[in-house]
């Protein structure tokens, strides 16, 4: 019988040392290479998040239109081209009729006006503070207005810095988004079918069924949300352009986008409009009209009584606690963009989970019926 001689004494220690060193070294290598890989992936995909998100939104919006053409026995690719062409013509006509909203001069003017608005808000804050200080003298050393000023200057600097860069980015969006959404529209079905066909035979039917329900609900929800934001934005724009307020189109966009976030979004979307109205127009009938447009017409009447009941099912309602969590977590991950899309993504997850649970419960109840029938 032969046996491998076991190392003893110093030799044993040496083996232990070599093994430990090798283990640590390979651990460090794996860890660092993993983090460089993650870095690479992050760098490679950093600019793609927004275009892909926008393309998905466009895809969800255009899909029903493409289906209309498909129903007339036109191939899917041709239908997508037809929809693109019609949209292009519509945009052209719209531009020719009312002329493009002058975004650039509006941005320039806003850049010039922004310090003025900030200064007014600061004045107001200081007045408020001095009255507060006279009543609660021990709050003296808490410098709210200083903090606010610092924050505002940082924000202004960010705008100044980002504008040329974001102009580039917007230019690339005009190229990337139609391209991506074309392929999403054409091939999403095939891609999803290929993914689903990877499931094992035993679960295939269930996965296919659940996917069908979830995707239908999700498409419904996402389409509803986007339409809601579009309508709210347009109504705010129209309502504001009845007054002398400047930046009505921009404020409409802000109101529409922030409307994607329930509870908090509409309030945040209201603030810039109200500040501009206060500074430029003062408290008067116009200010109260603007206030009414934001709160009463857009939020209460249009959103609560008309749009939400029609477009969005109650299923997707999130508890306010989840809304706040989604905003905070989205903000940590992707900044302002993450804050806005965090809540819709949380709703999407909720819808998917609810659908799966409902499917499982019907599954179990029908099985019970079958078993009881046999007994």
């Amino acid at each position: 019988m032969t046996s491998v001689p076991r190392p003893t004494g110093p030799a044993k220690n040496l083996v232990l040392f070599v093994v430990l060193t090798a283990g640590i070294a390979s651990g460090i290598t794996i860890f660092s290479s993993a983090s460089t890989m993650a870095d690479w992936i992050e760098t490679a995909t950093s600019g793609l998040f927004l275009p892909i998100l926008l393309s998905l939104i466009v895809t969800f919006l255009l899909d029903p239109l493409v289906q209309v053409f498909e129903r007339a026995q036109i191939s899917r690719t041709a239908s997508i081209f037809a929809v693109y062409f019609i949209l292009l013509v519509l945009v052209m006509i719209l531009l020719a009729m009312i002329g493009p909203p002058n975004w650039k001069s509006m941005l320039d003017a806003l850049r010039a006006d922004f310090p003025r608005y900030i200064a007014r808000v600061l004045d107001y804050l200081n007045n408020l503070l001095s009255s507060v200080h006279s009543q609660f003298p021990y709050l003296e050393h808490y410098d709210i207005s200083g903090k606010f000023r610092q924050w505002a200057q940082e924000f202004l600097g960010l705008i100044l810095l980002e504008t040329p860069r974001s102009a580039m980015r917007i230019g690339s969006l005009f190229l990337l988004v139609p391209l991506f959404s074309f392929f999403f529209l054409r091939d999403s079905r095939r891609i999803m079918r290929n993914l689903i066909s990877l499931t094992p035979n035993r679960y295939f039917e269930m996965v296919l069924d659940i996917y069908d329900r979830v995707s239908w609900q999700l498409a419904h929800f996402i389409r509803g949300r986007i339409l809601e934001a579009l309508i709210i934005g347009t109504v705010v724009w129209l309502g504001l352009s009845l007054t002398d307020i400047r930046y009505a189109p921009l404020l409409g966009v802000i109101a529409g986008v922030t409307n994607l976030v329930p509870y908090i979004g509409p309030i945040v979307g209201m603030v810039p409009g109200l500040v501009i109205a206060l500074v430029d127009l003062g408290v008067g009938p116009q200010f109260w009209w603007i206030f009414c447009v934001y709160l009463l017409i857009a939020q209460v009447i249009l959103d609560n009584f008309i749009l939400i009941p029609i477009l969005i099912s109650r299923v997707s309602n999130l508890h306010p606690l989840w809304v706040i969590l989604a905003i905070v977590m989205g903000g940590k991950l992707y900044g302002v963009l993450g804050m806005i899309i965090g809540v819709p993504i949380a709703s999407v997850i909720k819808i998917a989970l609810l659908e799966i649970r409902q499917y499982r419960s019907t599954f179990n109840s029908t099985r019970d019926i079958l078993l009881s029938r046999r007994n």
Partner: protein
Amino acid sequence: MDPFWSNIFRKPGYKATLAYFLGSVPIFASLGRRDLNFLETLVHLRNYHPGETIFAEGDIGSGMYVIRSGGVRIEMKDEQGENRVQADLEAGDFFGEIALTTPQPRIATATATEQTVLVGLFRADILDAVRKHPAIASKILLGLTRILSQRLQHAGLRLREQSYSHLEPSSGEQP
């Protein structure tokens, strides 16, 4: 016709395609070539090992299967809970079509007896087709209805035969 010309106009190997195979299934018999090509994009091809369960009694069903190659055994449990073979199906046969329109639990167990390729057509895809291509979808559903009503009639006749055969001797015994 000159074989030279006939070869040009017939797509080579069409008989080997999935579309041609689907056209030979009774449910899809009334579909034209274009419709069959569309149906081909709707179905799923699944491979099964010998002895693998395709679905079990009590599973929630969501579609039908056509056997492209191989064999499938259909079994049902009787009162004692013993499995009893109902049918041995082979290539070209189809099963599970009742679950295509409504989600119902499977009433039998289907098992592959050899290496089997199945063509699955499921409710989710049919509903999708109803929305996007109503004309073709209605042809498919009409074919399904035709098969189901034939079976219903057949079952009704058998039921009547059985009830008469039950009645006749008892009426003969009585004076």
